[in-house]
């Protein structure tokens, strides 16, 4: 592929915005904030498209599937040479999730992260003192919108989620944790 005819990085970003997260297929990997960089490396036939990805959690089993999906999607758009890189620093945070991604999560029935992850950092000295967790940062029910919710389980069906229930409409729901 000649340097002049290859697609721009912006175009590649648009294609990646169509690659679904395998665990939550309603949002794309770009919405999730795990695509950190797209660039070209080398010239002409040697040129490869390099995509840097940041895994959400260290043990997330979707990481490998996502790399494969990226290569597959870009090959389908005619890019013969694609290389994915894993970049763990700076660590992924839900602050990188797009507003569009949060809206799609809510529509899908998953309460999106609330507020900024850094603002919710609990000082270690305050952990395990028997106090009740602060009520700020609680999600709203994605079905009825009520703020009257309660935590059922700190861990849910994937590492990135916790399980809540709505005390107004009585439905259980997943909450994408602030991280």
């Amino acid at each position: 592929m000649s340097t002049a005819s290859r697609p721009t990085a912006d175009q590649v970003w648009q294609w990646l915005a169509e690659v679904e997260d395998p665990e939550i297929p309603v949002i794309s990997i770009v919405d999730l904030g795990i695509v950190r960089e797209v660039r070209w490396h080398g010239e002409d036939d040697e040129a490869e498209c390099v995509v840097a990805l940041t895994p959400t959690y260290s043990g997330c089993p979707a990481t490998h599937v996502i790399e494969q999906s990226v290569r597959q999607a870009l090959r389908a758009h005619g890019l013969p040479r694609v290389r994915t890189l894993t970049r763990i620093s700076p660590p992924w945070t839900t602050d990188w999730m797009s507003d569009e991604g949060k809206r799609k999560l809510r529509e899908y029935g998953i309460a999106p992260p609330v507020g900024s992850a850094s603002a919710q950092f609990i000082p270690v000295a305050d952990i395990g003192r028997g106090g009740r967790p602060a009520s700020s940062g609680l999600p709203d029910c994605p079905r009825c919108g009520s703020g009257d919710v309660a935590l059922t389980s700190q861990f849910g069906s994937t590492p990135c989620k916790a399980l809540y229930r709505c005390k107004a409409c009585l439905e259980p729901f997943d909450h994408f944790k602030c991280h």
Partner: protein
Amino acid sequence: MRDEKLEFLFRLGDTALVLSQRLTEWVGKGPALEEDMALANTALDLIGQARLWLAYAGEIEGRGRTEDDLAYLRDAHEFRNVLLVEQPNGDYADTLMRQFLFDSWHLLLLDGLAASADERIAAIADKARKEVTYHLRRSADLVVRLGDGTPESHRRMQRALDDLWMFTGELFEADEVEQAVEAQGIARGVAQLREAWLAQLQGTLVAATLVLPPLDAWMQRGGKQGRHSEHMGFLLAEMQFMQRAYPGLQW
């Protein structure tokens, strides 16, 4: 010459891996569905961290061993995990107390490593400590709820604390490996973590109405040097069975 950084990476990776293996033994038989999921998710975070540490160890070692080779094809005396994490799950009080004692130490350790002179170590620690903060929130919360719960749950939590106490000394033991990595700016000295750890522990134990065991109690040691308890062989037999029986098997 022994590579102290490599030795240190084995300690980090093996400790995360072995505790992960212990926690997965609960999967499918946790006392409640929420607890089952919590242990499985904690185990998943730890195995992800173990993979990052051991992959780096394999690269430094330079013998072409991957993180899988290191996890599945080493024998007990080659493992460098602390003794605390290989202790059997016991009852739920034992499992939770082990987790709390570990999490509170682990977070302090990772906070220090996030400022490591080694960029790769700093990056892994910075990522891992976000996960471990969440682990500690849960384990500390449950220690308080069960310690300050029924007479039966209180009795079991105190017994678990007393039983596990002798395995906590090793966490702060600075041998020549730890001294060398501290001198190289790779890690903060583990002995320096003890004061902060005790303060963390005290706060939670007071809220949990539990009594801290004597600070000068006799302490067991040896895991970091590869001398393990009798439980280690059984743990590895289960974890490594597949690769031992069918070498190179993939699926």
